[in-house]
């Protein structure tokens, strides 16, 4: 009995050849890659077609025509402009605010630790829910923020309903949700910086602005780049905040890429145009990511060289 139990596993032992092993080890990554590549290539395929679900008889390859149409399509240029404006405004303001808050909370003590945890709360709220919350707060009839706006002398302030203030309103919501992300990343960066340069500057009596511009900021740049990279990628692909608040309106003030592509597919069932829009968005995201990653690597090399 005991012989049988001890000898059985030895008999079933499976040997993997040395040549096959690397492929087997990388199989999970390969499968994940396939899971990403199949939808991606399908989207590329669709983007090269005249493909509208409501006109199946018209379906056929038009190769780059969907992309060429964008050149003369004012709606596309508007989408590009709105997406870039939104991404730039949100990321710039979030970086400024996030850095400011991180600097204020840099010193480790109970109060700062507590505040930094509390400030993470918006990040834990689903952006769509946050948008609905802000939609209520900015309701001109009963919203608390509309009430404060009236107190400040802004009578009949219409927030996201007014084309003049719609962008500002959704940017504020984005800042409320995502500034904590940048803050926590930069706070971790600030607290991990080596102490020696700061101690040396303090001994020499270097003014604080000089320390910030010449020591803190350059050393924090990799963290800033990382935060910017994540936020730019996410911001340029914004959907939930804008769709939940305005569905891309008023007019075409907030028709960012994802909203436009979503409406093109689910409402207009224009698969070809929707896929082409998403391919352009992918190209922009890919380019920006490359720029950021190259700069980040360059900085890392530089810092290693300096070290």
């Amino acid at each position, binding site marked *: 009995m005991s012989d049988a139990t001890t000898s059985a596993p030895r008999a079933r032992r499976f040997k993997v050849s040395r040549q096959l092993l690397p492929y087997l080890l990388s199989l999970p990554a390969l499968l994940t890659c396939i899971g990403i590549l199949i939808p991606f290539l399908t989207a590329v395929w669709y983007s090269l077609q005249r493909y509208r679900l409501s006109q199946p008889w018209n379906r056929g390859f038009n190769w780059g025509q969907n992309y060429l149409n964008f050149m003369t399509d004012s709606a596309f240029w508007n989408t590009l402009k709105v997406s870039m404006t939104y991404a730039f405004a949100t990321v710039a303001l979030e970086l400024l605010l996030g850095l400011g808050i991180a600097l204020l909370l840099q010193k480790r003590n109970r109060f700062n630790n507590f505040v930094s945890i509390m400030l993470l709360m918006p990040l834990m709220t689903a952006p769509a829910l946050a948008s609905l919350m802000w939609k209520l707060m900015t309701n001109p009839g009963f919203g608390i923020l509309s009430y404060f706006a009236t107190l400040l002398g802004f009578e*009949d302030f219409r*927030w996201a309903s007014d084309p003049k203030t719609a962008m500002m309103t959704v940017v504020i919501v984005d800042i409320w949700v995502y500034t904590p992300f940048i803050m926590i990343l930069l706070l971790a960066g600030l607290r991990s910086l080596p102490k020696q340069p700061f101690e040396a500057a303090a001994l020499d009596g270097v003014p604080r602005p000089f320390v910030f511009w010449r020591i803190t900021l350059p050393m924090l740049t990799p963290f800033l780049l990382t935060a910017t990279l994540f936020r730019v990628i996410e911001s340029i692909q914004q959907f939930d905040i804008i769709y939940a608040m305005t569905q891309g309106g008023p007019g075409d003030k907030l028709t960012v890429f994802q909203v436009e592509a979503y409406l093109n597919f*689910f409402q207009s069932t224009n698969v070809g145009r929707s896929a082409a829009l998403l391919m352009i968005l992918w190209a922009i995201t890919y380019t920006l990511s490359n720029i950021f990653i190259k700069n980040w690597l360059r900085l890392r090399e530089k810092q290693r060289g300096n070290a």
Partner: protein
Amino acid sequence: MSKKEKQLAEAFVAGKIGRRELIKGMSALGVTAATAGVLVNAAATQALAQNGFDWKKHDGTSIKLLLNKHPYTDAMIANLENFKVLTGMDVQYDVFPEDVYFDKVTAALSSGSSEYDAFMTGAYMTWTYGPAGWCDDLNEYISDASKTNPDYNWEDVLEGVRKSCAWNGRPGGALGSDDAKQWCIPLAYEQNNLTYNKRIFDANGLAVPTNLDELLGTAAAAKSAMNGGYGIGVRGSRSWATIHPGFLSGYTNFGQVDLNVGADGKLTAAMNTDVSKQFHSKWVQMIQESGAPDWSTHTWYQVGTDVGAGKSAMMFDADILGYFMNGAGNAEAGNLAFSAFKANPDAAAPTPNIWIWSMSMSSFSKQKDAAWYFLQWATGPEHDLFGAREMDLVNPARSSVWADEMFRNKLSNSYSGYVEMHDVSAPGASIKFTAQPLFFDLTTEWAATLQKMVAKEVPVDEGLDMLAESVNRQLNEAGL
């Protein structure tokens, strides 16, 4: 059901006793009004089984439905047990909220999934689903005596509603034409008319407006009389749904159309005529002067809840929205009243555009005959009557139900002017859009243009010319 309860229900279905006697008798037996309704429908279902039609043909079959969360769905589910008893079939269903419902339908059908045998839809959506080959022409079933209950009485469905669900698939083809395919069958429908707050109107000596000019004046007067409220609720979000209710109903009352259909079948934009520009100007002025401050984000939900909460004095939207807002749980419950609305003083009658919640059959279903049994039951006269009398299946799509005294009394007792409104406007009620594949693109752009006009970003004349140019370009690109 006890023998006595059964006898009472059967006597009522046979017309031997009235509702009063039924309720009195059921009360004596300790049965509540709601339960009595289900018992009566069970008796009606048994009567249905006695007309020689083989309701048990698909006994043991199970079908699955894709449904939208709605009072019509609630009525269907409340009565479902009777269908199961009648046919011996099992019915599974998924219910999704309206916000995501049509995304789910599009995803399910475009993938060719056979998970769902039948689904709820609006007639506009079938202009995509039909040509795409996602739903079947139900004429084949309606006209097949071996598959359809002889008492189904298809002609009983209101003509404008019935025809609005049928299209021949040719862009610009008339709805309900002889060669049209019946892509869906109406469950119930909504007309767009005026719902007004009688309390506010009486307190401020306001008369119910009878045309667009009066509507503007009354809305402005109501706004100045109300403390913090606004005059009129209409939809304003950047969506096709902003165009189809009050806006299009008023627009077509002036003899205007969205698109012209040429002799060669080509479509061209028709929204920049002089009459259309005048109508748009007044509509825009009405919103600017008396509409909701956040109008551009208003969907049916905000329009309805505001009138139900007394924030707006009236709304030009779906009559059933007013019906629900007049019910318990709303601040203004019991204060809302209804009026048919003819925007054009020279028009003979109102011309409300309609939204129709309907049932369609998935082309990917593997048990279409069984699914048809469910469809004909769910849209049949017995269930329609049950829904109208006992649940909130308003507006029923069948003329026999509108003739039912019990239903009419139910409405007249609690919904001031509702029956009269319906009777006046129903003859002119139908879908007023031109059926074509770019429906959602063009109407969404129309709504976005309206938003720009209200925000004074573009003058009405210029905005409509730009819209017409863009519409023509898109039609041309799509070969329409």
